[in-house]
């Protein structure tokens, strides 16, 4: 079962959880769709209302930046680790 690692700054939106277990057998988009159902306030901080990843949020699937692999269509294997990280941005 894949696991989403939630950054500290967003854990309040996931009931304080640092790790979230999500369903097998899909893509990153499917994982985020599931998150929208189960943790909507967390998901909307990762994707905007068009469904796109927010510009300054990076998502890694087993250590690979999804933007350099398949984007939201990146396959998520069983047992994968999905890491959500704010990018280096801000003022």
């Amino acid at each position, binding site marked *: 079962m894949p696991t989403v690692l939630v950054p500290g700054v967003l854990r309040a939106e996931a009931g304080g959880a640092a790790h979230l277990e999500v369903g097998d057998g899909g893509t990153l988009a499917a994982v985020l769709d599931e998150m929208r159902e189960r943790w909507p306030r967390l998901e*909307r*901080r*990762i994707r905007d*209302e068009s469904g*796109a990843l*927010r510009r300054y949020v990076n998502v890694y699937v087993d250590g690979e930046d999804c933007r350099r692999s398949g984007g939201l269509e990146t396959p998520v294997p069983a047992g994968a680790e999905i890491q959500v990280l*704010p*990018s280096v941005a801000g003022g």
Partner: protein
Amino acid sequence: MTELLAIGTKKGLFLAVSEDDRQSWKIGSAHFPGMSIYAVAIDNRGPAPRLLAGVDSSHFGPSVAVSDDLGATWQEPDAAPLAFPADAGAVVERVWQITPAGSGVVYAGVQPSALFRSEDGGRTYELVRALWDHPHRPEWGAGFGGQAVHTVLPHPDDPDRVLVAMSTGGVYRTTDGGASWSPANTGIKAYFLPDQWPEFGQCVHKVARDGADPDTYYAQNHHGVYRTVDGGDTWQSIAGTLPADFGFPIVAHPRRGGTLWTFPLVSDGQREPVDLRCRVFRSTDAGEHWEPRQAGLPEEPFYQVVLRDAMCADAAEPAGVYFGTRSGEVFASRDEGESWTSVATHLPDVLCVRAGSV
């Protein structure tokens, strides 16, 4: 009576409280630390005052949070409180204005230029479709700060009448509850366009409604200060006795007609106070004459800008006036601008201020 001054900054919302009729202020630590607060509102219509904050994370996007306990706790809905419908082909980038209107109604002006309307006191909003679908929209432009509806002025007596202003695009108004919108910019100059007197496209920085006459408004334009006495049909210059006609905020007295305040800057290309003096200019005759007011304000050379929503008045008697600067200084007057005291220093850039009794 407790007076509250809400200060939205580039890095958090600060709440200052006065228990002695605005003689002194106690300011707390930041709410939403690290997030930009471009819009804040104090809604006194319900059983308890409600604070509404447009919270903008550079990483995680915009939202609107509300508090019914003066900031002790904040609530957001699970779903995004403001979101474009899928067929709009846009995403909300920032909330620039939150304006309580009639019973339970709250308007939000956003970037890109759009108006949202809430009927549940500001928790959730829906796009005002007719303004978004306006045939002029493809020609609305963006200034340096982005393209946004930054001013929303519901008519105090007629819920079907609302006036909005955007940069760039200018002033639009509805008289049918938002079902249709018309530009209302006749007389406002757009010096940066080949046609300097267009139907729309002006860069109106802020509009304020007169405290006594709901058909009189004042506009601080991207060069030019104007007044309309016919609800926006025509605008006339009132910049004649100001030292400069550039600036961002314009604020009207909550009750007394013809009294207003602004903070002029030299020009578009020189965005600093005239003569480098920190002065608020006040008119008591609807802009025919302006007088500087600086008692208590810094006397050394002053380079700071007051942004469009970083000046406001409260509803007390006499009215209080407040402004904040991009250098994180906040000043207050409890005598309608005659004299000023410092409320805060060394805050992040001040983006907006709102004041009221709570």
